[in-house]
Structures are given as C-alpha cells and as structure tokens.
C-alpha cells in the first residue's frame, strides 16, 4: 500500500483477489460452513425474539420432560425449554471467541513482525519464551492463569485465550516475515531511508496477510474450542448463561435419564466448530493455491 499508485500492478492484484473470492464462494464446504455460521449469528443477534420460551428463567411446570411437539428438545430440571436455550446459547461464545481471536491476531502479528524483521536478540528471546509457553497445553495454561488471577469474568477468559494464541500466531507470522525480509522491495524501502516501523507495517505486512488470515480463521476454530472447554470445566462462562458448554456442565451428571439436556447443546457446539473449520479449510485452499 505505498503512496505512489501503480495502476498496472494494482489491477492485476485486484483481478487475482476477485478470482480468489469467486473460487471461495463456489466451494461447497465454504457455503455449508458459512450458512451454519450465519444461522448461529442470526440466533445470537435475534436472541429472545425468536425463542419460543424465555431461555433463562422460564419456570414452566414441566420439569425434565422428554422432547415433544411442545418442547422440541425437552426441558431441563429447572423447567427451562432446552430448544430456546440452544438457540440463545450461541451469543456469548460468538462474542468471546472472535474477540479473543482478534486480540491474539493483533498482538501475535506485531510480535511476529518484530521478531521476524529484527532477528537477533529480540527474536531469540521472544522465540524462547514462546517455546516455553507452547509447552503447556492451552487448557492447562488457561486454568493456571484463571486460578492465579482468581477471577472468572468474561474479560479474563478473552485475555487468557488471546495470551495463549498470540505466540502461536507470532510464530506463523515470523516464518512468513523471514521469507519476505530478504526480498528486494524490503531492501528498496530501507535504502529509501524508511524507518523500520514503516517498512514492517506498510511494506511487509500487506505481503504476509494471506498466512495471517489463514492462521486467524484456524485460531477462531480453536478459540471456540477453548471457550467451550473452559466453560465445561467451570473456568469460562458461568451459569445462568445459556451457553452450550455451561448447559452441558450443568446437566452431564444426569446424562442417563435426561440426555436431551446434554445432547442438543453438544450437537450445537459440534455444528459451530465444524462450520468454522469448513470455512477456514476452504479459505486455506483458495489462498494457498
């Protein structure tokens, strides 16, 4: 994105971009994944307007009834309609996971640009710390930090997940920057006397966008995975949120007699992560061809 316009190159790039987009919207896995994601986003936005019952506090006299036409997915032991709760359950996770991913992408990209561009001591130090952090599995690290902070607020969950993901993104960005740093355009910018931040963010960054985009969509899948798992083990979202994993954590002990209170939220989680995975897989296919 240099200031001097280069019409020929620009149009060639935009043709390529349009071609990629065309390939993307034609791929069946992108369409399927995208449709499922849009459905859950719609549910998150519309919330209580489309649920047949109040997902949080509706105390119907029917406690723990099996699925029927009245209650498609049955009711839980507090008499709440499981179908309504499944529809309402996408809101929190669809807010937290993308926010955490965005934050991680911003921090990770900055770290990756710095380590890949400067190499040397900054690179070595940060890379070692990243290695050490990556030795602890995400969930274990998150549990440790949440326990240490002693707070289980939504922001804690977002920051913990972002903190765990940013080194992983940094590593990908670093690898991409390393392969760019020796190219002529970087040398040219340096010889022009541009300062390092300008070269990093205005020259190198646009050229490493595709791998960052791919990495971000992959991380989004894992962020949903992480939020769900943390909520299930009691370190993420808390009741009375109708979040799917919270519902499962609440009810899985009763699995043998009220299976509907667990199975439907579980299928909802599965549908969302698989949909995000289908989209990220097709983005990857298109960008890396």
């Amino acid at each position: 994105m240099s200031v001097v316009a280069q019409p020929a190159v620009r149009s060639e790039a935009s043709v390529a971009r349009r071609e990629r987009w065309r390939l993307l919207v034609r791929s069946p896995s992108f369409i399927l994944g995208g449709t499922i994601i849009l459905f859950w986003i719609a549910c998150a936005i519309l919330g209580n307007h489309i649920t047949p019952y109040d997902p949080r506090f509706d105390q119907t006299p029917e406690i723990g009834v099996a699925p029927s036409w009245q209650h498609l997915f049955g009711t839980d032991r507090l008499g709440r309609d499981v179908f309504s709760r499944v529809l309402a359950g996408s809101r929190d996770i669809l807010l937290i996971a993308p926010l955490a991913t965005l934050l991680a992408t911003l921090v990770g990209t900055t770290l990756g640009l710095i380590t890949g561009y400067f190499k040397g001591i900054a690179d070595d130090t940060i890379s070692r710390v990243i290695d050490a952090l990556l030795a602890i599995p995400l969930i274990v690290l998150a549990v440790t930090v949440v326990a240490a902070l002693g707070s289980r607020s939504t922001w804690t969950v977002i920051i913990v997940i972002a903190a765990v993901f940013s080194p992983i993104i940094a590593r990908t960005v670093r690898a991409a920057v390393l392969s760019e740093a020796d190219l002529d355009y970087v040398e040219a910018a340096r010889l022009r006397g541009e300062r390092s931040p300008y070269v990093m963010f205005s020259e190198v960054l646009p050229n490493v966008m595709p791998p960052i985009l791919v990495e971000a969509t992959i991380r989004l899948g894992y962020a949903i995975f992480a939020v769900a798992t943390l909520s299930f083990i009691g370190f993420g979202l808390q009741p009375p949120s109708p979040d799917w994993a919270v519902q499962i954590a609440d009810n899985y002990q009763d699995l043998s007699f009220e299976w509907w209170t667990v199975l439907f939220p579980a299928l909802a989680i599965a549908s969302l992560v698989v949909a995000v995975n289908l989209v990220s897989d097709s983005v990857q296919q298109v960008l890396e061809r």
Partner: protein
Amino acid sequence: MARYIAKRLGLALITLVLLSMIVFGASQLLPGDLGRSVLGRDATAEAVAEYNHEHGTDRSVVVQYLDWAGGVARGDLGRSLVPPEQPVWDVLRPALLNSLKLAIFAFCLVVPFGILGGVLSGLRAGKATDRTITVVGLSLAVVPEFVTGLVLILALSIWAGWFPVSAQWDPGSGPLTQVEHLTLPAIALTLVLFGYVARITRAGVIEAMDADYTRTAYLKGLPRKTVIRRHVLRNALLPTIAVIGTQVGYLLGGLVAIELLFNYQGIGLTVLDAAKLRDYTVLGAGVLIIGFTYVMVTLVGDIISALLNPRVRFSGSE
C-alpha cells in the same frame, strides 16, 4: 549429529527453565498474598503473617523462586497447601500413572488408525476418498473432546450398554476391567487426534510418491503394490512416527476435559482440582510436569527425525 543433539538439549534446558519461571510467575499473579488467599478474608493479620512466614511466602520473589526451583531440581516438590498437606509428589504420582495408562491406550489406537487413514488419503490425493478423510479428520479434531466423549457415552454406554460410564475402575480390578473402563475415553481422544496423524502421514506419503526413487521403481517395472510397500511406505512412515510424538502435548491438554467427564483421577483432573482449590504447589508442580513431558517427548521426536534424515545427520549443525 552430536552437535545437533547438544544444541537441541541446550534449547530444551532453556525452555524448561523459562517454563519454571512462567509457572512460578503465574502463582505470583495472585492479588494479595498467599496466606490471605488460603486463610480467607476473616483471618487476622497475625494469622496471615504467621502462615506466610511458615510457608516462606514473606521472602522476596527471587529468593522464593530459587528456593522452589532448587527443590524441584532435587525432586522435592513441596507439600500441598490443602489439608492434609500431603507431599505434592504423593498426590501427583498415582494421577500420572492413571494418565499414562489412558494416554498409552489412546496412542495404541490413534497411531494405526491415523496412519491407515493418512496412507489411504495420500495414495488417492485429490480424490473423493482423500477429501472425505481429510475433512472428517479435521472436523473431528476441532470438536472439543468433551463433546465427542459425551456422544460416545450416550451412544455406546447408556443406550447400547457396552461400556461403563465412568473410567474409574473399582480398586483391585484386573487389567481387562481397566481396559474396558478406559475404552471410551481413549476412543474420544483418538477421534480428536486422528485428523492430525492422518494429515502428517498423508503429507509423508505424497512426498514419497513424488520422489525420484518411486519413479525409478515404477520405471524399473515393479508392480504398484511392491512400489508402495517397499518404497513409498517405508520412506514415508518412519519420519511420520517421529512427528506423531509431538502430538503428545496436545493429548496432555485434552486429558483435562476427558478426565473430568469420565471422572478419572489423572493428572488433568488433579491439576483442575488444584486450580479450583487454589492449591498452588500442586497446580504448579502438575503444570511443570506436563510441560516437562511435552518438552522431552518433542526433543526425542526431533532427535529421531534427525537420525532418520541424512541431511540433518551428516550436516554437523542445523
């Protein structure tokens, strides 16, 4: 080669030291002090001060870290903060043994199935079989273990009645009963890891299929079966097995939710309980052991890969 191994060992050591600092640092994030956090809001200032003095948490952070790290290096992990204040190692040892059983079982399932899937997919790269295995494998990999586990419990245990719901066997059970109890959690972990192993194998097979020696073997007139068995698989699988070792870290993380779901007292559930009870010595030691295992397994995997790869083996350094 010796230089390569020495370098990797050095890096692993640095990683472990940093890891210990991170784990120790996390326990320092706690607002307020340890005595206040353990004894609660109502404790008197004297009681808190005495507790801190007794547990050494009134000293400077650096001294505390050196003391703790020195203890860990000598194999002394301290005592649990939660009554009955057992030695940490006594809490962690049985848990580690349990997790080890589950992890080994899961690995015995995932390695053959993953490799089979990867080979099928690599040999038919780009065809429908390949796409199906890849998409199904990666989709299963992103579904949280506890979701997969729940569906398995519901279908195979509650509805079909084939397996027990809990992974914890009665004390004194024989190995067969233990295997029966561990089958469902092991399958859940296997389903999650299948996609990764299949993907790594697939890449190895595709690379070997494109290699010159494979072309030569075909041109020599060898039948396809022989080429695949003798040239493709033999070259593709050995490095794959080394790379699979690096998935152990992932397995360790997946243990937390699975052990909770199946009520199985392994390292994951122990760490989780310690975090809930704010038992920082057990939590820190558990996290450190998990990290240590990961670093060691990755190291061994890297060294095996290097040993199998002549380019690394003969180049002296990296």
